[in-house]
């Protein structure tokens, strides 16, 4: 079987899963769970195979499939792996089986529908990442809303309806403007070059006028910024997270938010380089605001899930900084930060779900001294907390360090050229490191330490083998990316370079940093 075919199988396997769940027997939920898990596992295995086969030295699209789809408009079914998406695809496929396993006992209502939705989400997310055609990308991007809407709305908490509608209306607003911008973009491509195409590769060369670029960038950026989310477009996230079932939160934090940053990286910035350069400082400012604002808000939350939700806002601020820096190190850091956050936030949400299943409370004030009560749980919790804080040897450090370093390098160059704004921003961004430790440890302290106190404490048992398996997988990944980031980062480097060239243009080449000069 050729690798391109495998990629198609990976993408479409969830659809097979949906068909399976439609045909399955609702009265035998364990069979549904088991088969879904097996399917997800196969998907992950195939993705891992592709990841291993991915050639870091090839800058082009790998395992590509190109079929004409709507030839009149130049829309093609064009998918493939490249340095931008390879890690995110791997992350998505990696979280798939974990999500199914993590919902084994939590979801007892409408089990088939639930798994169908998980598959649909998986399909949409993978599709968003592997699509190399704007139309296809948008298709998957929007499709995402539907299963997520149902997931939060059906299996969510008390205010789930409010949360899920807020989520959809927020996100869709961005999408609709992106749609307008997309139509305009493709039409301009056609008028200027005569090529009717939605392929990213063609669109990069659209050569838009700066005025048009600004508008289009604003529209795309709005859509992506809502998804990331960047302050002040973030208020859907805490609500969605709090109300979503564990699986929903995990998917949301693990992959969905990365669609926003990925969008910036793959489309927002490179499609409109002139506008993006103009907006660099603004994007950086928003990134920094997200870092600080998210952290501050995480500090005063009383709901466990909200703390992690706000921490997501803060963490993805680093990714935005890295992307806006247009510095090779910064870009790589941003990619790493995305993946790392996907792992740690997913892990933390799993852990919140596990405690919620046991104690039925998300109120931090109800807890204390969990470390005594659930020692194994606490070890994992601590490791993930530290990874979220960005402690060296964890993936969080790799991401934050590189992203901040890259930002700083760009800021320093700007400073040398007489503009110190970015330098100040970089300085403030570094305080996020402190704030991050502040809220996470404050949280951990009240949650894990002190006198033992938890609702239903007498019935609470430590983690089951299934739960340990989920968390161990995540923790292993966290350390893999923390200790040995070189191999994955080599696979993204050429894409980062391409991004740098597309966005930075002349500047990036002229101002090759010292490291590269040395080489």
């Amino acid at each position: 079987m050729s690798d391109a075919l495998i990629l198609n199988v990976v993408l479409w396997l969830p659809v097979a899963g949906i068909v399976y769940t439609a045909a399955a027997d609702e009265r035998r939920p364990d069979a549904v769970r088991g088969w879904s898990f097996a399917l997800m596992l196969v998907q992950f295995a195939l993705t891992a195979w592709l990841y291993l086969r991915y050639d870091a030295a090839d800058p082009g699209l790998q395992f590509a499939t190109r079929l004409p789809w709507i030839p009149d408009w130049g829309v093609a079914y064009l998918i493939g792996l490249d340095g931008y998406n390879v890690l995110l695809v791997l992350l998505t496929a990696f979280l798939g089986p974990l999500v199914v396993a993590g919902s084994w006992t939590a979801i007892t209502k409408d089990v088939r529908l639930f798994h169908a939705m998980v598959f649909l989400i998986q399909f949409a997310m993978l599709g968003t990442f592997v699509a190399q055609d704007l139309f296809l990308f948008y298709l998957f991007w929007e499709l995402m809303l539907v299963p997520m809407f149902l997931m939060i709305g059906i299996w969510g908490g008390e205010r789930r309806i409010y949360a899920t509608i807020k989520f959809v209306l927020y996100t869709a607003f961005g999408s609709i403007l992106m749609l307008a911008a997309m139509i305009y973009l493709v039409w301009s491509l056609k008028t200027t070059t005569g090529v009717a195409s939605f392929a990213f590769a063609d669109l990069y060369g659209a050569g838009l006028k700066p005025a048009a670029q600004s508008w289009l960038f604003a529209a795309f950026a709005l859509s992506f910024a809502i998804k990331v989310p960047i302050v002040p477009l973030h208020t859907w996230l805490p609500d969605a997270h709090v109300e979503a079932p564990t699986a929903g939160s995990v998917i949301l934090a693990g992959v969905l938010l990365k669609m926003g940053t990925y969008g910036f990286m793959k489309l927002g910035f490179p499609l409109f380089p002139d506008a993006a350069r103009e907006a660099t400082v603004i994007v950086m400012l928003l990134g920094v605001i997200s870092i600080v604002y998210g952290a501050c808000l995480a500090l005063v939350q009383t709901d466990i899930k909200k703390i992690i939700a706000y921490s997501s806002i803060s963490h993805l601020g680093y990714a935005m900084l890295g992307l806006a820096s247009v510095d090779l190190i910064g870009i790589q850091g941003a990619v790493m930060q995305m993946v790392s956050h996907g792992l740690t936030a997913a892990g933390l949400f799993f852990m919140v779900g596990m405690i919620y299943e046991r104690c039925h409370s998300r109120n931090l004030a109800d807890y204390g001294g969990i470390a005594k009560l659930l020692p194994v749980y606490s070890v994992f919790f601590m490791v993930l907390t530290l990874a979220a804080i960005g402690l060296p040897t964890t993936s969080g450090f790799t991401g934050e360090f590189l992203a901040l370093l890259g930002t700083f390098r760009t800021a320093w160059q700007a400073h040398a050229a007489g503009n110190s704004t970015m330098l100040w921003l970089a300085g403030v961004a570094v305080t996020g490191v402190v704030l991050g430790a502040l809220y996470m440890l404050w949280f951990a302290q009240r949650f894990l330490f002190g006198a033992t106190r938890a609702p239903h404490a007498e019935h609470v048992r430590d983690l089951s083998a299934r739960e340990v398996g989920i968390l161990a997988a995540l923790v292993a990944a966290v350390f893999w990316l923390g200790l040995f980031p070189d191999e994955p980062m080599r696979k993204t480097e050429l894409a980062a370079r391409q991004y740098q060239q597309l966005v930075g243009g002349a500047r990036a080449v002229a101002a090759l940093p010292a490291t590269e000069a040395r080489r």
Partner: protein
Amino acid sequence: MNVQTVLVSMLPEHLLLAGLCLVLVLDILGRAPRTSFALALGTVVAAAAAAAVLSAGGYAAATFVGQLSVSPATSAGKAIVLVLAVPVLMLSRDEFRDAQFPMLALASLYGACLMISADSFLTLLLGLETLSLPVYALVLLAMQRKDCAEAALKYLVLGGTATGMLLMGASLLFGWSGTLAIDAFARALDAPSALARAGAALVLCAFFLKAAIFPFHAWAPDAYQGGSVPATAYMATIVKAAVLLAVVRLFGAAELSPAMIALVAVPPLVSIVWGNITAMRQPSFRRMIAYSSIAHAGFLFFALLGAVEGRFQAIAFYLAAYGLMSLVAFTALPHDGDDAVDDRIDSLKGLFHRRPYAAVTLAIAMLSLAGIPPLPGFVAKFLVFRNVMAAGHTELAVLGLVGSYLGLYFYLRVIQYMFMAAHPYGATQAALRRHAFAASLVCLVPVALLTVFPGWALGLLRG
């Protein structure tokens, strides 16, 4: 004009007429309504196939010069209308036991086909009235409901007014151009003559009224709600399709001047916003669909802002996608007995647990109507706005898209009720409605085709 041309080019119409006559005869002979129903269904399928073959074969002919001509596009339009009629007929079977619905529907469809290929206001009027008059009766058919007469009255009075406006407009255009050919309208749009402009405006308003565009929309919610499910389905899909296809023909090759753009764009734009917002709080499903159809009519008229070549394709595709999806929605509605209760959106609560298939299909329909990809509704909307933007009306396109965003909420509300709430009346498992189920399958096949191969469908409708 030779007989063969008349026979071949109007084959769908002939088939419909023959079917209608047969059904009438059978009814008079007192045969079981089942036979009439089957016959009507067969007739419509045959007519649809004939239209499709004509269209695919690229058949074009001036059947009656100056009055009626056939082109692949008109045949394609007829095919769409007739295909949409198939599930409507099937739906009606669950509601109406006698042969009246198929008879009226066949007559009305005949009018629709005439209207679509009309070349003069004479034929147009003939078609329009043949289309509309049976529909007034269709609304009235739901006799067991107290509101149906009121609905029919409102529809009739305003529909009659529309006829009056159309005729006055036609008459003024006749006075201006000396001909009743419909291309006078296209020419009149830009003509520097008060007579021409007034005529064009009158004709345009008449079609606005028929298509339920703000501020001529007011009849639609009442008529939709007061009628029966099949009647509403008929109005929402077939009438709308026929009217819009006639409008495309009416506009012909007219390039719109900036002044006319405002006239053609603003009422539809307001309709989009108005329909989508008002739909938010509706307690009745059919009423909500009516407001939704008002908004969709706005999108359809938006397609006229695009370049001439793309108009037919955009409108035809949109009509197919919109019509099929609306019909899927109608087939999925609960039918537990009391229509007034069934029609409440509340009664959709917990539908997923009672009838999962219906809930899923209805959800798909809602998402498609909301324009969520990859469903056909999205492609249709994309096509329309692509054309509008390509014609240089960027601001209008953006406004229209934002307007479509407003509609998202009420479509989601339906899904929310079905999946996220418990049924308020504790209704029991309803028996499967065979015809509705079959109708939904009939709709879903083309829907699937449109979803997976939109490029192919667009190719067929290139016009």
